[in-house]
């Protein structure tokens, strides 16, 4: 690396300013172009509730809501989301009251180790607002982007069904 003068030798470009509204709070970040939204949230804003699992869009642990839509924050760059509103797991409770999905996950014991849980819950918030899932089969299919290696799937589906009833 380096001797051939390939792309890896180009100097680090200057950091770029990115304005985001994160959990309702306007924020300006100075990040390198290659900073993913996930790394910006965790490393620049100390919002470590959003988890890095595979970092390749295969596990869903990094799921957040951008302008109300659930996405994998590991597969987008912070600079691409300039001007966007981001909601993470930290932004779901209101005035000390848990979001109905957070409460439902507790009520149904919908996790064991908890590493996938923030992604599961953010994904389920997106699922409910999309309004495409009614049955358990449809919930399972539309939640398939969130893996749970502890295998808490039946309880996750039950928790989402409980929250859907109250949405």
């Amino acid at each position: 690396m380096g001797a051939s003068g390939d792309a890896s030798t180009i100097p680090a470009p200057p950091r770029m300013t990115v304005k985001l509204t994160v959990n309702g709070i306007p924020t300006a970040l100075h990040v390198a172009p290659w900073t993913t939204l996930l790394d910006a949230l965790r490393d620049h804003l100390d919002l470590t509730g959003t988890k890095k699992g595979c970092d390749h869009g295969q596990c869903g642990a990094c799921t957040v809501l951008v302008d109300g839509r659930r996405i994998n924050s590991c597969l987008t760059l912070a600079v691409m989301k300039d001007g966007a509103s981001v909601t993470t797991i930290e932004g779901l409770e209101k005035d000390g009251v848990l979001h109905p999905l957070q409460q439902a996950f507790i009520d149904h014991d919908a996790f064991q180790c908890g590493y996938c849980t923030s992604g599961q819950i953010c994904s389920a918030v997106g699922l409910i607002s999309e309004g495409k899932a009614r049955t358990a089969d449809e919930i399972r299919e539309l939640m398939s982007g969130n893996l749970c290696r502890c295998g808490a799937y039946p309880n996750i589906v039950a928790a989402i069904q409980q929250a859907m009833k109250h949405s």
Partner: protein
Amino acid sequence: MINFEYARASDVADAIRRKAADPAAKFIAGGTNLLDLMKDDVERPPRLIDISRLPLTSVEQTAGGGVLIGALVPNSDLAYHPLIQRRYPLLSSAILAGASQQLRNMASTGGNLMQRTRCAYFYDVATPCNKREPDSGCSAIEGINRGHAILGTSTSCIATHPSDMCVALAALDANVHVAGPKGGRVMPLTDFHRLPGDTPQTDSNLGPEEIITGVELPSPGFAQNYSYLKIRDRLSYAFALVSVAAALELDGDTIKDARLALGGVAHKPWRDKAAESALRGAGADEAAFGRAAELLLHGARAHKHNAFKIKLAHRAIVRTLTQAAMATPQSQSIKKIR
């Protein structure tokens, strides 16, 4: 991932200019495949041109009775678009068979066409791969090739194209609208992707300075008799071993028109007009479907681990055509195959 520069294109012409100025640059829209490949050092662009804000996000009826889909329409929006659900349910179904909802929310229509193979050797920079590093050799031909192609392969590459959406687009005779320094052109989707031959590094016939602006569907949507059946190792969120897009136009029990395309078996969505011709005028029965399957799989050649795909594809074709004929399309949420 290497360091790179980032710029945002202000319009399509600006995007084309920026690409022409730096041929090693890459367009980024959804980013779901490109960033994944960059993290693994498979793609090493010195510059990204962000096209995600270009105004290519509409789904509109055309004067000719078809529908023009902007290149930046997210996969999820397209799958759930009322016009697509009503007139082209085969396309909706195929899109919903692929990826996860998070990825479909990010991934664009044009990006779906441009996604690269998920061949494990292509992804592993420690192994030879003619697609990643021309003339370095193919690790899959003598390696683990269970998921690889059975049709249209070459001695250089046996990778498959991973898209579900493109299989439906191929069956629906979609056209790809592209723009470049010399203006725009339109090419059939079936000519967009190419077979590997001895240049597997080139996935498509898109020019290096061109950009996809949209995908156009002609009027016939086969909304009555269609099915998209995807066979994979787990029930959701996995790439196809074999997938089938089938669309029929029936006159009673007689087939007036037929479309048939396969995914997961070749370097591009696989269509063969001979198979469709054989269906036209035939009765919609298992014998006719079996003959079509044989014609579509003509020339199929297995490698060490993927011989099962030939029989699997045959059965999947017959089953999908049966589902289409009976107007009982495969559900993408209830996974039981009827």
